[in-house]
């Protein structure tokens, strides 16, 4: 049966979003993003305050300064961590350089009772939740796996398996719903993560149950060496269309826009309006991690183009132009950041290694006969080297 009549083009497809799509998904991250009409901005790259017909912020000078302080301090902490890694104090570090506005803007939009599910790069959000940066260093140094108390700061542990935390956040939000609580949950993830089944399933759960969760995707244009075109041929915020909840793209290097958009989305969630997807359009200025060499896969021009959009320089210009802060204030923040960095450096070096037997702790909440046996045997084993002790027991033979 070879009837051709049905082949007339074009079919009445459900319209594909009218955004230039790279159907071939060719490589190359593309240069500076052509700002689209749908990119929410409250500050131009030059620091001009522009209006948006839906979103606005009107903060006090102190509040505006607070945001600046956050931006500078987390960048400084990040730089210090990179230095510590170079000095061999950390095993690895995932830098947030370039994403400060996306993280501080969203982090400061949170209320105390809101709950955060981060990836491994949300040092700026951790800062907003008063998580001691030493905890973060501890993880990357290898003295613990995070180990802070998530419920103390309403900030969950870093999740390294891409996308997994979005389901945890959604389930947590279902719990908030059942508790009738007036709070929201925010799940952070990257542009690469949006390809994981778990992330898409979390969109399904959140929309079907109308859970109070905000999905905050930092599109820093790269998943290690893969440009965002490898993950989607349309803008990421439009993924939400397929699941029936709102999506918005915000300039991730504009701390005020991120703040306003996130605050609105969180409030929607609290008010029972369900989930939302925020795509913070930003850029990973540094390497994926300290072990990565981005010159292997991306061109310098792209990085240069994004430098012109630096979130801190932009915001500083805004503060200056609007008289919210002057040179002396900026200098004081620089001084404070040096002090914070110094404390961090010292604290990191002093982080104690875990005791050998501690590796048996906290695997189980309740007694476990096998673990008890293994712990006892290992303790006896370590003791058997007493005398030939090299400091933490063991390795008598490797010594000799």
């Amino acid at each position, binding site marked *: 049966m070879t009837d051709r009549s049905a082949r007339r083009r074009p079919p009445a497809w459900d319209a594909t979003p009218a955004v230039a799509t790279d159907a071939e998904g060719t490589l190359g991250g593309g240069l500076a993003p052509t700002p689209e009409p749908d990119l929410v901005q409250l500050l131009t790259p030059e620091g001009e305050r522009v209006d948006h017909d839906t979103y606005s912020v009107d903060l006090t000078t102190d509040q505006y300064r607070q945001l600046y302080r956050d931006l500078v301090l987390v960048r400084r902490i990040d730089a210090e961590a990179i230095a510590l890694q170079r000095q061999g104090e950390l095993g690895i570090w995932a830098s947030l350089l370039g994403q400060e506005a996306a993280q501080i803007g969203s982090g400061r939009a949170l209320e105390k009772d809101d709950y955060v599910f981060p990836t491994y790069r949300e040092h700026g959000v951790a800062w907003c939740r008063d998580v001691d940066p030493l905890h973060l260093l501890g993880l990357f140094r290898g003295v613990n796996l995070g180990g802070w108390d998530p419920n103390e700061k309403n900030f969950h542990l870093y999740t390294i398996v891409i996308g997994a935390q979005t*389901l*945890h956040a959604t389930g947590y939000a279902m*719990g908030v719903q059942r508790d009738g609580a007036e709070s929201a949950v925010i799940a952070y993830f990257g542009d690469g993560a949006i390809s994981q089944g778990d992330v898409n399933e*979390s969109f399904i*759960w959140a929309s079907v149950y109308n859970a109070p969760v905000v999905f905050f995707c930092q599109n820093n244009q790269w998943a290690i060496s893969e440009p965002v075109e490898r993950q989607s041929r349309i803008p990421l915020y439009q993924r939400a269309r397929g699941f029936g909840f709102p999506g918005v793209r915000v300039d991730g290097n504009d701390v005020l826009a991120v703040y306003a958009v996130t605050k609105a989305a969180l409030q929607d969630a609290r008010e029972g309006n369900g989930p939302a997807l925020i795509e913070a359009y930003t850029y990973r200025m540094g390497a994926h991690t300290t072990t990565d060499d981005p010159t292997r896969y991306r061109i310098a021009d792209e990085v240069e183009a994004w430098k012109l959009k630096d979130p801190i320089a932009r915001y500083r210009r805004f503060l200056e132009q609007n008289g919210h802060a002057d040179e002396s204030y900026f200098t004081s923040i620089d001084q404070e950041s040096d002090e914070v960095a110094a404390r961090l450096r010292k604290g990191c070096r002093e982080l104690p290694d875990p005791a050998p037997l501690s590796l048996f702790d906290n695997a*189980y*909440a309740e007694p476990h*006969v096998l673990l008890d046996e293994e712990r006892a045997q290992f303790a006896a084993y370590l003791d058997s080297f007493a005398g030939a002790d090299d400091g933490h027991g063991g390795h008598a033979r490797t010594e000799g």
Partner: protein
Amino acid sequence: MTSITLVKGLNMGLRKALENDQKVVIMGEDVGKHGGVFRVTDGLQKDFGEDRVIDTPLAESGIVGTAIGLALRGYRPVCEIQFDGFVFPAFNQIVSQLAKMRYRADGHVTVPLTIRIPFGGHIGAVEHHSESPEAYFMHTAGLRVVACSNPVDGYWMIQQAVASDDPVIFFEPKGRYWEKAELDESATPDPLHSARVVRQGNDATIVTYGPTVKVCLDAAVAAEEEGRSLEVIDLRSLSPLDIEAVCASVRRTGRLIVAHEAPVFGGSGAEIAARVTEKCFYSLEAPVLRVGGFFTPYPPSRIEDEYLPDLDRVLDAVDRAMAY
């Protein structure tokens, strides 16, 4: 004393759990109005509401992943995986998140989650509906793994699993769902992680769990007719193992056969054999012999009887063990 099926025992146990702790929620595919494809959650949504007995979208990773989130919020979810072969989409959430969350948090959080998995064959089903994946979970530190074999244990063990502050993978022998036993609700149950000698004997010990407990008991009866006295132990817990209970028996009998439906290669029997041999080396008159599935995918149901260990294959192993 009431006579109940395993399905009923589990249903009653879950009902108790829901009554005793407001934080207990049940999640899964078709667990609500439908009461689960095996009716284990029958009537629970009607009595406890849609907020506590939740029909979920059709995705196992989502079920376990959101259940972890609920647990982090203070809930105590019980997830139903519809059939053994469908737990694998959730494997990543179970192995890398559920099992590790507490360790990652230095004990600051607990994730009290129970994952119910009907397992085992002999139901004449199509592919993926008759598997025994317990060894994958045994090898995963951070999890507890148990398997009930009868209605009474089903009633008690599911309550104990839900009450545990650690994640528990709870295996239910679906081929035994409709077998009956007398339940005394006033009795005191054995600890969740204890094995049980279900038949005493002196010539050899047979260790098993779940669906093959009955197979081994039948084998012991048949053996008796041939003048052989077999001890049968229902392990009940696979992780941790109640290895001392097994060793105590082996030190008397000197011979051990392990039987399960999962493929022998890399199965739970390997760990039991290795561990018992190390602990009872001088007591063993023969090597620990293992009876189980062959190293193929689960076969078409019309030959599953050949694939699964039956009375004869268990007794054949006993013969071989006695021959040493």
